[in-house]
């Protein structure tokens, strides 16, 4: 597991006097599911934005997919996928049109794209719904589709920002099956979540409190370290120390 795909050291983001992200350092390995946890306002989103090239770090260095986050933001963007908590699908476009749009945005050639669209539709078992408007789909389907759209260009890393908000446990479970299948193919998954049961599905977890990473290890090691029954207890122990409120 020595093949690092994200490597960050001393990454800091300051907004005026407020230090949103305070010297965080970590590595993410190729093909793993990396859980990025923390309470609201802990700095998860800011850290993730810096990794995606949306925000410029105040201090620190890092590479994502082998590119420097300071100077090679555009190259990073080509090699990552991103799914926001609001799914980012266009309601008035059909399933197929949504996939094709993002494929086009990532500069995929026509032939390559149409093969990929078929492949994704097949995997989702969406073939007969390919011409349905996204607005007519149930939430769980939209979520899976959003994930597929984020991986349409076969990126090395997919960033998922609280991808499972507002869906029922069964759908969440199915969604995680999809994530695991994608990771098994060698795609690295970087996911933020609020659900501690989901944290158990991750290979490794980092816990952010007040802009700093307070713990980073596999779920079982973390449970041991904090002498806890489950991830929920680990989270409570760490989050209790938080000074910041929302």
């Amino acid at each position, binding site marked *: 597991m020595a093949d690092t795909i994200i490597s960050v050291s001393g990454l800091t983001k300051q907004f005026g006097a407020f230090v949103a992200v305070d010297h965080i350092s970590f590595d993410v390995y190729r093909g793993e599911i990396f859980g990025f946890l923390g309470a609201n306002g802990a700095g998860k989103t800011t850290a993730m934005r810096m990794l995606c090239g949306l925000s410029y770090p105040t201090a620190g260095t890092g590479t994502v997919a082998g590119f420097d986050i300071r100077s090679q933001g555009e190259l990073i*963007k*080509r090699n990552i996928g991103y799914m926001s908590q609001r799914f980012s699908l266009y309601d008035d476009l059909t399933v197929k049109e949504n996939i094709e749009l993002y494929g086009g945005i990532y500069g995929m050639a026509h032939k390559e794209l149409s093969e990929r669209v078929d492949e994704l539709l097949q995997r989702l078992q969406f073939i007969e719904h390919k011409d349905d408007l996204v607005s007519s789909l149930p939430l769980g389907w939209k979520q899976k589709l959003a994930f597929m759209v984020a991986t349409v260009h076969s990126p090395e890393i997919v960033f998922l920002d609280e991808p499972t908000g507002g869906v029922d446990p069964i759908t969440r479970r199915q969604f995680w099956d999809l994530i695991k299948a994608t990771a098994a193919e060698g795609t690295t998954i970087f996911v933020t979540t609020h659900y501690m049961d989901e944290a158990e599905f991750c290979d490794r977890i980092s816990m952010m409190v007040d802009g700093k990473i307070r713990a980073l290890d596999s779920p079982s090691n973390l449970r041991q370290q904090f002498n806890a029954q489950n991830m929920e207890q680990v989270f409570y122990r760490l989050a209790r120390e938080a000074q910041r409120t929302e």
Partner: protein
Amino acid sequence: MNAFISFVKKECIHILRDVRTMMIVLLIPVILTLLFGFAISTEINDISVAVVVNKYTPDVRRDISALEQNPYISYSGIIEEHDIDAVLRSGKCAAVVMFGRDGKRNVVLDASNSSLSASAGSYITAILNNDKPMPLPIATYMRHNPQLKSAYNFVPGIIGLIFILICALMTCVSVVREKEMGTMETLLVSPIRPVLVVLAKMVPYLCISLVNLATILLLSHYVLEMPIHGNLPTLLGLCVLYILLSLTLGLLVSTLAQTQMVALLICAMVMMMPMMMLSGMLFPLENLPPVLKQITYVIPARWFNEAIRKVMVEGMGITGIWKEFSILLAMTIALFAASIKKFNDRLE
């Protein structure tokens, strides 16, 4: 380029699938043009005029027959002097012409509609002074628009208004909608350049605007009988420049507004109102107080109205409007640079 085309395609789908909005966008110009052209009118059309005659002379007879024959005046006969007030009050006539014993002529107007009576007064004066070897006291010449047709004034104004409405407002709302939906975030993470997102949004609205431009010009030429004296390429060039200006204005607002509601308010209150008031469309610029007059210099529609009037009504070519044209061009470039900069700034 591939990315740009898929994006333009997506924008077109948005517009085509939203049939109701598209119909509104296509019909608004028709409705506004007809409304301003016919309903809201300060022009002379079918004004009833009576006369009071104290002494018949050949001059008087000639004047009366001039009134009778004028297509825009309906002559309603001779009345007694003491009936003037009653006739005007009852609304039977809008104006009475009095021929005095000494050869003097007076025009009495029903001034309850001030703008109409003012133009009626000058129009009647113009008729009465027509063909006179020595024009009598009031000599008013009205060039280009002797009938004081309001369409001459309103049509350029409407073109200015509609493009702000459709280009600025629609582009702006469509960008801000993506912010609200959260799709903008995903676009920013994608490798597509912000400039391309912006340009792709402009393309379909540019097409719609060109359709609207054709509708307005055809309507105003064939239905409102608005002349197009200048040459067509100059006119179209001017309009396309103004459309581009409106589109960039919409983009600039979209970088400032976070919700569709705010975007609508900014477009309606900050752009439309001053545009209608200060562009010379409703009120003559010459009558504005000095402070407001200064403000009109930064309102694009003011320059556009001036230029398009010169081209359509006065028949000037590009040489006649180079000043307005270059001001509009400079504004477009400045606005575009500003909105691209704002757009990129969001990435921090």
